[in-house]
């Protein structure tokens, strides 16, 4: 790719060289910078560090489960590991993953702005992220042992256990605040900072998905904030709120928790869908099919996603009428997701597909997300849910959507945009191999969980009956393949960023604004914003060429 014939541009100093504050170089010029691009990189680095830790915990959990009984760790340690794995992956990796890293970096460029509207609030939200991360680390290292409640902090156990639940709650609360500030910043930026010629329906679809995500971040996160505060107050002061010994209702806690945490999965998946909507037209050389349907389906997901939380609690005790309604809305919710999938496939139809790594990751994304989505419908059906509730089928479903969906979306975004962000290209061949290994390992890891969950393997159990062992062995071997793939992928990207050949301005042939600025971008992105009248996915020149060659 790097060899493509590009006129040798005279490069201006990029954002990597020009500091926005008095520190010209070094760490202070980064952690005190209000430049949206530098803040995006700060998020990228911190997020990747947490991701590696959580992957390691996941590896240990899988290794423990390779045989029944104790294999390498004690049961208590196992409980703490799956709790930390959940907390870190959710609050420190997937939620900030796409909006805070790639949203921060590319949202202003994609709408023709010089920065987000509140740059200092943006930096503050990174600090909140970092402080929240420190609390999460503190909960691991402080005496007393890290939290063993699962990432859901269900009461009354989270009020009674002697482990460090409080630092973990504080971490989640502060990270929620960080997420709110990012969402607030993005909504205001999209409303106020768009280039005057960029009307709502000329925005790239990634921006639409960030917009829908930002509304969920702003409207849903406060509920988890107050709920975690209540659990904390209950722990410290013994105020009676959820603890049944003091008259409280633990099921009410579950409701409040899921009122946030179900919409939160759309905070995680919507931006990944936005990435898919960016990458598919670029690598198919076709205008996106059904632009408005994709844009509005994001908003529909954000809206209906807020009304289905109790489908996590069908066995917790609810009226039949409520169960029916929540199950019904869950099924309605699958419609906008399906609309997106069909539109992506229609975009590819008769396109000139170029199967570069970003596109390959998106293919895995669609495959795995569809499996995750269908199994989600199975779980949303009341009768089936009774059978599958709290089995590893749920774990598999969740990971198919969150890791197979969002995680692969993040990998796709990395392969798509890192050359733009750092100005250097990674090795495409190695990246393709890494993709194949990651995809195979991933499916080997989670597919057996569907089967054993269906056969009755409970989730979160330390020990199991011997008849489940073949599935566990397959799954654990899958985790090894996956980790090998991840190591190859990250090493390749890292070497590419450091020593790869110079990346051209537009390596993939994208038409959105970020491909019309210098690689890497200059400090305030543009001298003059290019013409945006044609809209973000104008591939008419390619399509016209195809007509004439026919």
């Amino acid at each position: 790719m790097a060899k493509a014939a590009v006129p040798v541009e005279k490069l201006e100093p990029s954002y990597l060289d020009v500091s926005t504050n008095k520190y010209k170089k070094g760490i202070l010029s980064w952690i005190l910078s209000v430049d949206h691009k530098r803040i995006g990189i700060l998020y990228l680095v911190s997020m990747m560090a947490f991701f590696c830790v959580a992957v390691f915990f996941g590896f240990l959990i899988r290794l423990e489960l390779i045989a029944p009984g104790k294999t390498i760790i004690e049961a208590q340690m196992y409980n703490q590991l799956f709790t930390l794995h959940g907390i870190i992956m959710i609050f420190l990796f997937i939620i900030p993953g796409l909006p805070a890293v790639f949203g921060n970096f590319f949202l202003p460029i994609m709408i023709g702005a010089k920065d987000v509207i509140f740059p200092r609030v943006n930096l503050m939200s990174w600090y909140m992220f970092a402080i929240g991360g420190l609390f999460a680390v503190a909960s691991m290292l402080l005496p007393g042992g890290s939290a063993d409640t699962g990432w859901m902090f269900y009461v009354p156990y989270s009020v009674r256990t002697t482990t460090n639940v409080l630092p973990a709650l504080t971490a989640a609360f502060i990270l929620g605040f960080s997420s709110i500030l990012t969402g607030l910043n993005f909504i205001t930026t999209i409303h106020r900072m768009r280039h005057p010629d960029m009307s709502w329906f000329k925005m790239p679809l990634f921006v639409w998905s960030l917009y829908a995500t930002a509304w969920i971040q702003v409207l849903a996160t406060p509920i988890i904030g107050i709920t975690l505060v209540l659990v904390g107050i209950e722990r410290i002061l013994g105020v009676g709120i959820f603890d049944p010994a003091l008259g409280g209702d633990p099921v009410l806690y579950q409701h409040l928790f899921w009122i946030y945490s179900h919409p939160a999965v759309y905070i995680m998946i919507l931006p990944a869908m936005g990435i898919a909507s960016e990458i598919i037209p670029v690598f198919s050389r076709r205008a996106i099919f059904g632009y408005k349907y994709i844009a509005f389906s994001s908003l529909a997901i954000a809206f209906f996603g807020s009304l289905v939380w109790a489908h996590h609690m069908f066995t917790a005790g609810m009226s039949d009428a409520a169960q029916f309604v929540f199950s019904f809305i869950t099924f309605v919710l699958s419609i906008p997701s399906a609309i997106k999938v069909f539109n992506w496939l229609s975009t590819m139809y008769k396109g000139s597909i170029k199967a570069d790594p970003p596109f390959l990751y998106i293919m895995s994304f669609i495959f795995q997300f569809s499996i995750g989505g269908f199994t989600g419908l199975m779980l949303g059906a009341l009768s089936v849910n009774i059978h599958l509730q709290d089995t590893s089928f749920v774990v598999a479903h969740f990971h198919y959507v969150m890791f197979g969906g969002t995680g692969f979306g993040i990998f796709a975004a990395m392969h798509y945009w890192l050359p733009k962000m750092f100005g250097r290209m990674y090795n495409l061949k190695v990246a393709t191999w890494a993709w194949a290994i990651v995809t195979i390992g991933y499916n080997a890891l989670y597919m057996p969980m569907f089967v054993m969950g269906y056969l009755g393997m409970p989730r979160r159990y330390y020990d199991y009956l011997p008849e489940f062992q073949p599935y566990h062995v397959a799954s654990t071997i899958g985790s090894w393949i996956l980790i090998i793939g991840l190591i190859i992928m990250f090493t390749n990207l890292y070497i590419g960023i450091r020593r790869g050949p110079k990346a051209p301005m537009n390596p993939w042939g994208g038409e959105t604004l970020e491909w019309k600025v210098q690689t890497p971008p200059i400090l305030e992105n543009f001298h003059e914003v290019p013409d945006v009248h044609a809209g973000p996915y104008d591939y008419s020149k390619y399509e016209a060429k195809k007509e004439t060659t026919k």
Partner: protein
Amino acid sequence: MSSTDHAAAVHQVHRDDYGSRLGMWLFLFTELILFGGLFIVYAVYRFMHQQEFHLAAQELNTTIGLINTIALLTSSMTAAMSITAMQKGNLRFSKWLIWVTIGFAFVFMVNKYFEWSAKIHHGIFPGSKDLLAKPDGEILYFGLYYVMTGLHTFHVIVGVIFFLFILRQIKQGKITSDRYVRLENSALYWHLVDLIWIFLFPLFYLIH
């Protein structure tokens, strides 16, 4: 605002008062939802324990609650007036009105202090033997009473801190008669504090 004005405001001057207010409104939404979670908890427990909530509510002093309501409502007015004074260029009057607002906030907090200490004196506080001897509904009522009014008072304190910053910035000349969006946003926040109290007052003091 036409699109060219918009571009001028954003791309050259780096100042967008409308955008700042929009950001503040979004933040206020999050605050409303934060308290909304508590209102849900209150509604559920009130529904489950109607009799006991009824009994417990009679222990609160409606007069103190009323004085606090009047203090906060009036302070909202003085906060709004200080914006108008600022718009008209009367900086001294504007500052004076902010001080009055802060004064009302202190009236509120002093009242709250006496109210809480009276409760604690009577042995009604989280974890106390007297409270735990009461039925579940009353334990929940007083738990919510402390949490909700406590969280609200915390917001009063934050509002006062905002206003102290505003006073400092007026002194430094950063807030003037044509650049007062920070004052506006602080007053918006203050109205939210007031608004939440308007709901807390009937829920705890008036519904018997």
